[in-house]
């Protein structure tokens, strides 16, 4: 059924890579987002300024420009370093470059989402935690995190959906994702519409499943809160 003139398996393989890039980028974005949000709320002015520069740069430039900047620029930096150290030439892996770029960009969006979510948790609760003698990690793990998830989920969901669609761009820097596999198949079979349509359906499936999962998560993390009657 999913033969597609013999290219079905290849496109499917690309779909897995797309998903892998997206999930790896998400992981990096969440880590950067938490660090960024912590920096933005830190008492140190330098740290706050650094986080602001990061989010402004990442959110002000297009994904594609940043991706090309990091891919080509990163390769140049690596070349200079290996030259200086007298090492052999190292090729930047497009998977790593793609994940780094998308993770860096969406880390900035996550920073804003998480910052808002942290601020939405009443401060008194955190102070109460400290008053009980919990340390910073315990307050984060037991009080801040469970409540901030609820506030962060809608923004997190949006970021994830945008991130997922941004992964289509990694084909530009030569990663064999679903988009590139489809391009190759389209060139060989002269059926571009068929293959790009399959890619569109693939992305639609990914986003639809994501929306359902996010809706379930939002319900779960809102348990115990009075829902507003609409």
């Amino acid at each position: 059924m999913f033969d597609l003139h013999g290219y079905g398996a290849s496109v499917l393989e690309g779909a897995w890579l797309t998903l892998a890039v997206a999930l790896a980028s998400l992981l990096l974005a969440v880590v950067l987002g938490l660090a960024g949000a912590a920096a933005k709320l830190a008492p140190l002015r330098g740290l706050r300024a650094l986080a602001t520069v990061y989010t402004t740069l990442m959110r002000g430039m297009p994904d594609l420009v940043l991706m090309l900047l990091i891919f080509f620029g990163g390769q140049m930096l690596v070349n200079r370093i290996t030259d200086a150290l007298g090492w052999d030439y190292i090729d930047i892996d497009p998977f790593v470059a793609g994940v780094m770029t998308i993770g860096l960009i969406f880390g900035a969006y996550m920073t804003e989402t998480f910052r808002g979510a942290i601020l939405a948790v009443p401060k008194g609760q955190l102070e109460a935690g400290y008053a009980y003698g919990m340390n910073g990690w315990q307050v984060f793990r037991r009080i801040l995190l469970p409540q901030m998830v609820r506030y962060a989920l809608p923004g997190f969901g949006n970021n994830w959906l945008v991130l997922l669609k941004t992964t289509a761009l990694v084909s530009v820097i030569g990663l064999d994702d679903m988009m590139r596999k489809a391009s190759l198949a389209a060139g060989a079979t002269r059926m571009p519409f068929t293959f790009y349509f399959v890619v569109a359906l693939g992305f639609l499936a990914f986003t639809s499943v994501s929306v359902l999962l996010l809706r379930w998560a939002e319900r779960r993390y809102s348990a115990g809160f009075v829902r507003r009657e609409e």
Partner: protein
Amino acid sequence: MDFSAIWQNFDLYLGGLRLTLELVSGCLALGLTLAVPLGVLAVYGPLWVRVPIGIYSYCFRGTPLLVQMFLIYYGLGQFEAVQQSIFWPVLKEAYWCALISFTLNTGAYTVEIIRGAVATMPHGEIEAARACGMSTLLMLRRIVLPSALRRALPAYGNEVIFMLQGSSIASIITLVDLTGAARIINSRYYLPFEAFLTAGLLYMAITFVLVGGFRLLERRWFAHLRPREG
């Protein structure tokens, strides 16, 4: 970093800037024209109109812009009928394909923004309009649209910025927009940092202008909601 090559070729960037602004303003104007009636119909229209609008919006929001652009630019040529039709001189041009796909994409997001704003009209205002004997069209013109478009403004401002940044993918189908100019400079001089940073900073400058413009517009349109001074 050596920006002298950039200054020597700044004309290329200015030309790219012009194309970017042209594409973005063009697709936003067309997309908004498409989205306002569709957004209203998505709330007030009969079921057989609401369902297709919902499907259009869902499909274009659920797939990457890059895939949509490729489907139109590379995909349509697959069909003999399209190649024979009078539209072919338009559809084989990268410029028009980019404009069409950007329009359909921003239209889909804008439909959803307008639909949300129209659907959340306070019910009392609708009842009041009906009680005054207004027809649906008159009510739309006098009551619903002025209020809904105003409330849609913040979300639409985000969409405009997303479209500006999304337009950078036009460079993938050979168009020399701002990103395309940077790619040419990078391949000619191998100056990835300088080339892409210049483009990125120009995008950022436009973003700031847009954010400032929308802030002014919001101040004006939401003047009645501002706390009184003095």
